[in-house]
């Protein structure tokens, strides 16, 4: 007698846990082989819970040493590499060829490594010491803007997801991400990777579901500081809603993620610039030299 395969239940990822959607709803995604998978149809309350989790995680994540964040992001790459076969299989299950699935997976791993390297460098490159004309030491440095909602690209489902998350968390933000609607499996598996690679719970929260339903809450929530939009249907609505609390909006709809993803300026889009002043004592008429 042949053995019955154990199938995976695809759940959402909030605060480091894998709950089902609180709504109890699902939507079916048919795989290439005809199998039907039931995907959580995330609700506004799931989005709300995810924002709460992201906010709670923000202080801890943003105050980690940049070097520590760097190591954790590199760890994500290691975990992805280790689960290579699973991801390729999942991408193929929704219709990708083996070659394209492999290419996407490898690009995704490399993207993690790329941004892992930026964590402890971007403030050196884009921060500044400002030579003010008074006797003060003055410097500007980037700080994460806070909680970011991301409507990840519909495709490439894995590379798009990874490419939109990495610059955000590399810079110390936490995020709530809406995964690709028709290829959500890799997103859930990616959440498992995050969960096993020392990324604290709540730093990345991944919801599956429908853009039409969730875009409103992703962009109007008053405790969200920025929204990144990677699709092409609701940009204007997002920008309008953003004005409720002066959210920063990034339009990443026209990115070719194979070509445009290695770019530290993406990271800067969810950064604030903080400028600090302090007097410089000058005894006996010696003036400061900054």
């Amino acid at each position, binding site marked *: 007698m042949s053995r019955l395969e154990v199938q995976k239940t695809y759940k959402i990822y909030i605060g480091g846990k894998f709950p089902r959607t609180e709504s109890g709803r699902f939507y079916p995604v048919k795989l290439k082989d005809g199998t039907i998978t039931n995907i959580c149809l995330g609700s506004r309350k799931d989005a709300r819970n995810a924002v709460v989790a992201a906010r709670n995680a923000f202080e801890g994540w943003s105050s980690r040493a940049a070097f520590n964040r760097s190591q954790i992001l590199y760890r994500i790459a290691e975990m992805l590499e280790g689960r290579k076969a699973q991801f390729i299989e999942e991408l193929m299950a929704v219709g990708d060829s083996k070659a394209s699935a492999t290419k996407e997976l490898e690009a995704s791993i490399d993207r993690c490594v790329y941004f892992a390297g930026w964590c402890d460098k971007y403030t050196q490159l884009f921060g500044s010491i400002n030579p003010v004309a*008074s*006797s003060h030491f003055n410097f500007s440095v980037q700080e994460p803007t806070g909680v970011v909602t991301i409507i990840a690209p519909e495709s490439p489902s894995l590379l798009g997801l990874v490419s939109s998350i990495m610059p955000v968390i590399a810079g110390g933000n936490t995020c709530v991400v809406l995964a690709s609607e028709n290829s959500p499996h890799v997103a859930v598996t990616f959440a498992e990777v995050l969960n096993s690679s020392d990324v604290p719970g709540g730093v990345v929260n991944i919801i599956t579901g429908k853009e039409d339903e969730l875009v409103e809450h992703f962009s109007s929530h008053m405790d969200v500081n920025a929204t990144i939009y990677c699709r092409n249907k609701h940009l204007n609505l997002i920008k309008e809603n953003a004005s409720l609390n002066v959210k920063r909006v990034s339009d990443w709809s026209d990115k070719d993620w194979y070509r445009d993803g290695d770019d530290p300026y993406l990271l800067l889009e969810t950064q604030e610039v903080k400028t600090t002043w302090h007097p410089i*004592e000058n*005894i006996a008429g010696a003036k400061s030299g900054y």
Partner: protein
Amino acid sequence: MTNNQLIALKRPIDQVGVEERVARFQTRSIKTEAKIQGLKMALNMIDLTTLEGKDTAGKVRQMCYKAMHPHDALPDLPTVAAVCVYPTHVATAVDALKGSGVKVAAVATAFPSGNSSRKIKLADTKIAVDAGADEVDMVISRGEFLSGNYSFVFDEIAAIKEACGKARLKVILETGELSTLDNVRHASDIAMLAGADFIKTSTGKISPAATMPVTLTMLEAIRDFYYETGKMVGMKPAGGISKSKLALHNLVMVKETLGDAWLSNEWFRFGASSLANDVLMQLAKQAEGRYQGLDYFSKD
């Protein structure tokens, strides 16, 4: 007080903040009536000073005349506040100033370095007081202060204060040797607690002397002491104030830091020698409308 108690008095001063406050005082524009009143007030606050190795009775007598008659060509001028001399010239000055209301101040305690024994400093003080000095300007032991021996400085001031009897004690911090405003503040607090009637910036022998940031720091120390104890202490910037404008800005600083009560020569003095003639030139200019030349003002 014990050294530890005195260490606990230290309060931080932000030098750049002090300089910014000073810069703001310097933007005060003193014109017309206010200028005349301010100049007369400044003249009346001067401790006309001669502290030279070559001082003689003749020099002191001439200066005393100037103290009482700053410039007789101008009506309604006040006298200066005091003359300031070495202890050996106190008797001459007392005699020359008799009945004028001008006080006699004597520098004492091994002025200007203060490097001598307690015994000699006390004797020095006693000589001045016995000769009739109304005020004694002592120097603190900067070496002891900078080496952290605060109780030595405190005890010394207290001892001199006792030796002064009725004479008012001005304590010279010699701020130019203290280097930081934090030290200026700490020394001010120690001096006031030990019984100083006045605190004074400098001997005039060391530069920098009475800069405005130093004076402001000391005025603020006086203010805190007053808040705390209700006791008024006087202030004397000395050295480096030779121009009327700077004197007026000092008065602005007094007015806006300590208020009206300190705007008199009972609580505020300028230690200076050439300031008087500059003030007189400005007063003459206000009266006559013409800019003046130094040849028209007596140098004593």
